[in-house]
């Protein structure tokens, strides 16, 4: 049986890329969510001001 090639670096790179992109996407979801919540609060305040 031949000796397996040493490709551990590629494996690490692969999983690093996965976790990087995955985390990035989740952060983008969280950021978008909190921005929208903030906008929502500002708009709700404005609406109350308009009525009063």
């Amino acid at each position: 049986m031949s000796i397996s090639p040493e490709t551990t670096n590629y494996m690490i790179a692969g999983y690093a890329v996965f976790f990087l992109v995955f985390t990035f996407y989740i952060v983008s979801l969280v950021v978008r969510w909190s921005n929208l919540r903030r906008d929502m609060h500002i708009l709700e305040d404005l609406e109350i001001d308009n009525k009063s």
Partner: protein
Amino acid sequence: MNKKPVILLVLDILSLVFLAVAAYLALSYAPMEATMGNVQKVFYFHVANAWVGMLGFISAGVAGIAYLRSGNPKWDIVEVAAVEISLVFFLIAILLGSIWARPAWNTWWTWEPRLTTAAITEMIYLAYFMLRNGIEDPNRRARFSAVYTLVGAVSVPITFMAIRLFRTIHPVVIGSQSAQAQGGFNMSPDMEVAFFFSLFTFTIIFADLFWHRIRLGNLANKTEELKLKVME
């Protein structure tokens, strides 16, 4: 709707725990494949990410048809969510495929049918978002994107057939003649455990992210409505 449902929280936790277990199974539990070395372990997440991309692709097609039939804006939100998730996960699958191909075939990119079709699907998604950006009227935006989703959903399988007819060098992993194809390998029972567990995990992750993205879309719509109301 602002309160987070308990099931969603459970899904969040399950996704994280399962992801950790799947990573452990892939990296540590599954044995090293002899002819390719450790890089073969990328395969578990590569296929699972492509699987999520497929789920997103199919969901987008279904949502597009549902929108055209019903005209309900809810389906537009679902469609965008599915397209976005599919875009992200196909991107990961393509990147992992490249990293795997480099040591296995000595090239970053192979014009392999599945890989090429995934790349073309990404192009369709980018066009989809450019189309959405170019239209202001929300009704028309929803209609046009549903039409384009439908066109894409039908053309992608035909593209795949055309490219497969054109050329195929990708290994067939599951099946009898697997070891024959260059770079192919037979899965041992340990490998199968890691493989099917990551497929299962990523299905849960898909459901979780899909739900979150739909909630985000709903919130964006509500904010938009409120903005119009305040402006008046």
